[in-house]
C-alpha cells in the first residue's frame, strides 16, 4: 500500500510540473493512452460502437483510449473502484449518474471545474438538458458528463390498441384510464395469456420504475443532498398501491416481480402490449418490432411524468492532471452534436444537448422514425433518479420491499414504512456530516 501511494504521489508531482511548464493543449497531448471503463445495460451493440469511436479518436488525435467493457452499472463501479484501490485503475468511466453520492463518499471522483474549464468548456457544460443535470450538478460543481442518458418510457403496441378498441394515437394520461386500457388489452384465457402492461421490478431496476411512478405523482423519493429518503410519504404509498392494483385489482399484469430482461422480448412477441423500459431500448425495438408501436410518457396522477436515468462519464481523482485533461477532452469529443446524435440513433439513448438534437443526422433519422423524437418532449416532466449515499444498498432494500408488496406478503404501506426505517438507519450518519 505505501508503495502505491508513493507512486501516485510521484505521478502527481510529474503532472504538476507539466502543468507549470506547458500550455493547456500541449499538456493534454502529452498523454498518449487512457483507460476507460463502460457498462452495457441495454440491448444495443454498444461495445462495437464504443470501439469504433475510440478508433476514430485515435486517428484524429493520436490518443489511444483503451475502452474496457465492465459489466452492469454496479459491476463497473465495483471494478473501477477496486482497480483504483489496487493502484491500477482507469482514468475515467461511464457509471450510473445516480451513483454520484456513493462516489463522492468513496472520494474517487473529481469535478470538471477542478480539472479546469475554459470559456468553451463552460458553454459546453451549460449546453446539457437541465433534466440531465439532476444528480450531476451539485452545490455549484459539475461532477460528471451526461453521456448515455435515458428516461423511463412506455412502449405500446398500436395494433393491440386498435384490436382492443382503444385509440392508438392517444396514450392514456392518468393512472385510472391506463389501468382500464391495460385491462382491456389483457386476455388471461389465451394460452399463454397475453398481458396488458408490465413494469420491471427486479433488483437494480425496481427503484427506477418506482421513481417513474412517483414522478407521475409529482413526487421525488429523496432530497438533493442524498441524505434523506421519503419512501413512506403518502404520495409514494399511493404510487405503490397503484402498481400493486394493476395485478390485484385489474389483473392486467402478471403477479409477482417482472424481470427487466423479459420485457422487451415479451413486447416484441406481442405477449405484453405495454412495457415500461428505458428509452435506451428504442433502437432495438425500432429495428425488431413487426407491428406498429409508439413511445409514451407513463401515465400519472393526474398528469404523466417520468424519471431520468442512465450513465455519465466520471473522471477519477487518481488520474494525473494531464490525464484528467485528456479524459475531459475525450468526453467533450464524444458529446459533440453530430457524435451525440449518432450515439442516440444507434442506441436509443436521448440526445444529451439541444444542438445534438438539431444535428442534421438526428433530424434525418427522426423524419424516418418519428418515435425517436418523442423522448425530448418527456424531459420537462422528468424527475431525478433515486440517488443517495450508499445508493445501491438503499435502492436494493427499496426493491426488496416493493417485491414484498407486489407478491402480496406486505401491504404497500407496511412495505414502504419498513423500507424507510431501514434507509433511515443507513443514512443517519450522513445527515450530520
Amino acid at each position, binding site marked *: 500500500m505505501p508503495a502505491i501511494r508513493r507512486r501516485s504521489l510521484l505521478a502527481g508531482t510529474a503532472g504538476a510540473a507539466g502543468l507549470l511548464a506547458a500550455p493547456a493543449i500541449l499538456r493534454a497531448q502529452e498523454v498518449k493512452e487512457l483507460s476507460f471503463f463502460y457498462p452495457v445495460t441495454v440491448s444495443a451493440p454498444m461495445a462495437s460502437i464504443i470501439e469504433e469511436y475510440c478508433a476514430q479518436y485515435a486517428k484524429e488525435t493520436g490518443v489511444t483510449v483503451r475502452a474496457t467493457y465492465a459489466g452492469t452499472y454496479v459491476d463497473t463501479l465495483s471494478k473501477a473502484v477496486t482497480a483504483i484501490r489496487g493502484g491500477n485503475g482507469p482514468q475515467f468511466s461511464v457509471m450510473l449518474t445516480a451513483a454520484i453520492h456513493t462516489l463522492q463518499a468513496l472520494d474517487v471522483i473529481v469535478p470538471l471545474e477542478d480539472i479546469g474549464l475554459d470559456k468553451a468548456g463552460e458553454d459546453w457544460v451549460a449546453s446539457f438538458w437541465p433534466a440531465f443535470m439532476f444528480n450531476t450538478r451539485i452545490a455549484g460543481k459539475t461532477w460528471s458528463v451526461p453521456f448515455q442518458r435515458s428516461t423511463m418510457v412506455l412502449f405500446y403496441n398500436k395494433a393491440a390498441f386498435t384490436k382492443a378498441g382503444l385509440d392508438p394515437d392517444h396514450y392514456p394520461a392518468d393512472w385510472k384510464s391506463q389501468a382500464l386500457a391495460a385491462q382491456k388489452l389483457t386476455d388471461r384465457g389465451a394460452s399463454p395469456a397475453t398481458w396488458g402492461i408490465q413494469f420491471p421490478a427486479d433488483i437494480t431496476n425496481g427503484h427506477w420504475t418506482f421513481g417513474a411512478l412517483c414522478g407521475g405523482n409529482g413526487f421525488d423519493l429523496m432530497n438533493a443532498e442524498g441524505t434523506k429518503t421519503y419512501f413512506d410519504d403518502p404520495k409514494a404509498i399511493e404510487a405503490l398501491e397503484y402498481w400493486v392494483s394493476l395485478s390485484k385489482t385489474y389483473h392486467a399484469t402478471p403477479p409477482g416481480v417482472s424481470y427487466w430482461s423479459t420485457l422487451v422480448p415479451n413486447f416484441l412477441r406481442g405477449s405484453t402490449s405495454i412495457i415500461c423500459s428505458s428509452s435506451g431500448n428504442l433502437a432495438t425495438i425500432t429495428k425488431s418490432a413487426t407491428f406498429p408501436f409508439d413511445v409514451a410518457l407513463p401515465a400519472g396522477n393526474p398528469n404523466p411524468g417520468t424519471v431520468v436515468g442512465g450513465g455519465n462519464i466520471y473522471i477519477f481523482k487518481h488520474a494525473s492532471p494531464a490525464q484528467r485533461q485528456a479524459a475531459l477532452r475525450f468526453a467533450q469529443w464524444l458529446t459533440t452534436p453530430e457524435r451525440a446524435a449518432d450515439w442516440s440513433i444507434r442506441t436509443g439513448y436521448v440526445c444529451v444537448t439541444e444542438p445534438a438534437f438539431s444535428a442534421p443526422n438526428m433530424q434525418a433519422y427522426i423524419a424516418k422514425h418519428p418515435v425517436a423524437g418523442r423522448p425530448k418532449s418527456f424531459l420537462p416532466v422528468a424527475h431525478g433518479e433515486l440517488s443517495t449515499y450508499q445508493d445501491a444498498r438503499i435502492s436494493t432494500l427499496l426493491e426488496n420491499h416493493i*417485491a414484498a408488496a407486489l407478491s402480496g406478503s406486505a401491504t404497500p404501506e407496511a412495505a414502504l414504512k419498513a423500507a424507510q426505517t431501514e434507509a433511515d438507519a443507513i443514512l443517519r450518519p450522513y445527515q450530520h456530516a
Partner: protein
Amino acid sequence: MDGETHLGGWLLVLPAALFIFAFTNVPLLATLASSLYAAPIAGHGGGFVGLANFRALFADPSFRTSLVNNLVYAAVTVPASVVLALAMALGVNRAIPGRATLRLFFFLPTMLPMIAVGAIWLFFFTPQYGLLDRVTGLIGRGDINWLGNPATALPAMMMVAVWKQAGFFMIFYLAALQNIPPVLHEAASLEGASRRYFFRRVTLPLLGPTTLFVMVTATINAFCVVDHVVEMTEGGPDNASSLLLYYVYTAGFRDWQLNGAAAATIVLVVILSGLAALLFAVFGRRVHYR
C-alpha cells in the same frame, strides 16, 4: 524416531505450510481483525468497535433472511444431489446399450461454467415461453413466474444447483462402484441374498467414504457457489434467493461495507467449520474404510 527425521519431515511440508499460512490463515486472521473495526462514515466514528458489526449484522433483516435461506438451501441441495448422484451412478453402472453416451449426458452440466448454467436456466425459467413453462403448458398451467415469486425463487436456485453438481458426484460413485469386488456379488447370490439386501448391507457401506466426501463437497458448494444467484436474481425478490456468500459479496463490493462483510465472512466460516466437524463426527465414525 530421531531429530533428523523430524527436521526432514518439517522441511518437506514447509513450502505447502507456508502457502497455506500465507493464503489461508493470514487472510482469515485479517478478516477476523477487520470484523472488529469500523471505517469512519462521512468523517465520523470508526476504530475498534468490538462485536458491534456482528450485532448490526444480526439486526439486518436481509442478513437473517440470507442465513435462513442458506440453511434451507443446504438442507435440500445436499441430500438431493447425493441421492440423485447415487441413482444415476447405479443406473449407468450396468451393462446397458448407450452407456457411455448416458454417462456423458449426466456429466455434461458439470463441465459448464456456473455462469453458462445460469444463462441456460434463466431461459428455462422464463415465464410463458421458457422450457419449464412450455412443459407445464402441456398440462394446462404454463405461466409460472419462477424467479419473480418469493415462494419459488429459492427452489429454482436449488434446482439449478442440484442439476449442476449431481453429475459430478455421480463420477465419484461410479468409480467407487467399480471398486466393489465382483466376488462379493457372487458370494451374496450364492447365499441367496436379495438385490435390495445386497445394496443395503454391502454396496452402501462400501460407498461410505465416497458418500462422506460427496456430502462435505456438496455442503461446501451450498455455501460457496453463488454465481447463479448473481446472474439470475441478484438475491431477489424480497431477498428470497439471497445466500450468505452473496450477502458478503454485495456488502463488500457493491456497498463497500468492508467491515460488515468481514463479520459476515466470519459467520460463514464458523458455520462451515461447524458443519464439516459435524459431518466428520457423525458420518466419519460410521464410514467403513478398507
